[in-house]
């Protein structure tokens, strides 16, 4: 890739010399380089592309009649289907990361049947499209040569196996290590953090513990020591072993932070239904292409908005709620809803090379419609964010806002104030409206039935 491509190509697409992504006129293209021509021909000619696309495992693309970004290197320009929302492994629930891992292995198995093999196994190459874990890097395949080992083995163990094992067997929150380590969890760290008993699990013993030991022992050894070859049976055995090790890892949410939220709040059924009805009515009126539900819990209101939105991203801070939401998506085969893990008080930053490889939460916006239902008190009281700053945040996040004000008299707010001084004299309906008036025009104000809560529809100024 030339400097020219570097300066105009996509900031996350520079490692692989086979090609890169670039935008032109708001459309995303992928340049395929000459050096990848034969691999590309095999992918398309062998029927592998078609089988993977049909199974929802690979992003479809069309060959585009576009000038390449760097002429001398280019073989072809393709236009991949646009992914509705790019998400990252540190924003996925356990089940989502597991689906992504199993999709990667399933792709590798199918590739081998077409005499191809994945040359990388990065979790960032997987996105959720139509509810399914889908490979978005068309250039990840190379021709398989008999005897060749899996070059992506190390990357697969770091990006998928290690975090899944840590989440299932140590603590589900350890997926946050992926935010610190962009090339996956270092295996010596995973080995040190995993419980001792995992040495009795053949898959974890070999692919993590012994693997980590071997990395340390052979660090810095030259390539010439990399003799030996691996039969096709051996390759199959390796992939199947990774697959069964991952299939046995499981994490089921026990009592979630919000699991029984709807039973213990000031909500009556009538209030809940009234709120649903308003969200349905307003989203039907706005028909947003992209809706973000912030503090979505298990996604009840995301589903209501989803009926009138192109795509909904359903964010919550609780791994159990996100997991439940994802399981529901899979069960219902919902295609336009993506549950993600997000701490609104510390949203995903931009990370990677030059801080530009993986976009921040805000960088992936603004959304057309933001739902902020029953979250204001958490941000304003638990996290001490002054109301004007809250208004600024929401104004930067979406064009339209459906926001619920929860007054101090509400039992949820009383709980938050139970063991601390009430240093929030401005936290009142009037204070809220004054603060938000600076950045928004209020289009609707409705008192929620059988509650003291108020729902607003606002448009950013």
């Amino acid at each position, binding site marked *: 890739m030339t400097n020219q491509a570097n300066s105009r190509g996509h900031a996350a697409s520079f490692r692989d010399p086979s090609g890169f992504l670039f935008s032109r006129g708001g459309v995303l293209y992928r340049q395929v380089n000459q050096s990848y021509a034969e691999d590309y021909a095999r992918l398309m000619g062998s029927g592998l592309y078609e089988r993977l696309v049909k199974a929802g*495992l690979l992003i479809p693309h069309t060959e585009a009649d576009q000038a390449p970004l760097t002429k001398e290197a280019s073989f072809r320009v393709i236009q991949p289907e646009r992914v509705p929302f790019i998400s990252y492994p540190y924003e996925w629930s356990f089940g989502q990361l597991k689906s992504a891992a199993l999709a990667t292995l399933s792709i590798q198995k199918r590739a081998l049947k077409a005499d191809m093999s994945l040359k990388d196994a990065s979790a960032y190459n997987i996105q959720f499209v139509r509810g399914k874990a889908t490979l978005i890097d068309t250039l990840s395949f190379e021709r398989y040569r008999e005897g060749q*080992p899996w070059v992506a083995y190390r990357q697969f163990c770091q990006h998928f196996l290690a975090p899944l094992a840590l989440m299932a067997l140590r603590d589900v929150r350890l997926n946050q290590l992926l935010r610190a380590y962009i090339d996956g969890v270092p295996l010596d760290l995973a080995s040190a953090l995993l419980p001792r008993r995992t040495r009795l699990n053949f898959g974890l013993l070999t692919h993590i513990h012994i*693997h980590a030991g071997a990395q340390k022992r052979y660090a810095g050894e030259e390539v010439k020591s990399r003799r030996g070859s691996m039969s096709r049976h*051996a390759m199959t055995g390796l992939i199947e072993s990774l697959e069964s090790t991952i299939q046995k890892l499981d994490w089921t949410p026990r009592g979630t932070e919000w699991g029984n939220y709807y039973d213990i709040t000031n909500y009556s059924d009538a209030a809940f239904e009234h709120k649903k009805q308003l969200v349905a009515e307003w989203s039907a009126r706005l028909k947003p292409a992209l809706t973000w539900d912030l503090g979505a819990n298990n996604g009840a209101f995301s589903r209501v908005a989803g009926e009138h939105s192109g795509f909904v991203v359903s964010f919550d801070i609780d791994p159990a709620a996100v997991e439940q939401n994802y399981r529901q998506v899979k069960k219902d085969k919902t295609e336009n809803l993506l549950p993600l893990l997000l701490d609104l008080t510390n949203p995903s930053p931009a990370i990677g090379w030059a801080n530009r490889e993986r976009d921040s939460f805000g960088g992936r916006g603004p959304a057309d419609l933001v739902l902020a239902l029953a979250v204001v008190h958490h941000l304003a009281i638990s996290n001490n964010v002054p109301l004007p700053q809250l208004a600024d945040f929401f104004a930067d996040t979406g064009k339209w806002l459906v926001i619920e004000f929860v007054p101090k008299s509400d039992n949820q707010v009383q709980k938050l104030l139970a063991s601390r001084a009430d240093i929030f004299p401005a936290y009142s309906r009037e204070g809220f409206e004054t603060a938000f008036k600076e950045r928004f025009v209020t289009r609707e104000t409705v008192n929620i039935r059988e509650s003291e809560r108020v729902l607003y529809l606002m448009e950013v100024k």
Partner: protein
Amino acid sequence: MHFAPLPYLDPGSGSFLIQLAIAALLGLGVALRASWGKIKGWFGIKSKPAEDDDESSE
């Protein structure tokens, strides 16, 4: 070296070597399974079809 050209990501010396060892062991199982299928075939017993294009569901 069995792969030419060299991969664009470093597979890591230790990862490379341990993979060969683990895979050799696991490959034995796959080879045995394959031969067992053949032996059963001689006696007219059908093996389960290899998992295939419906495995995408996960």
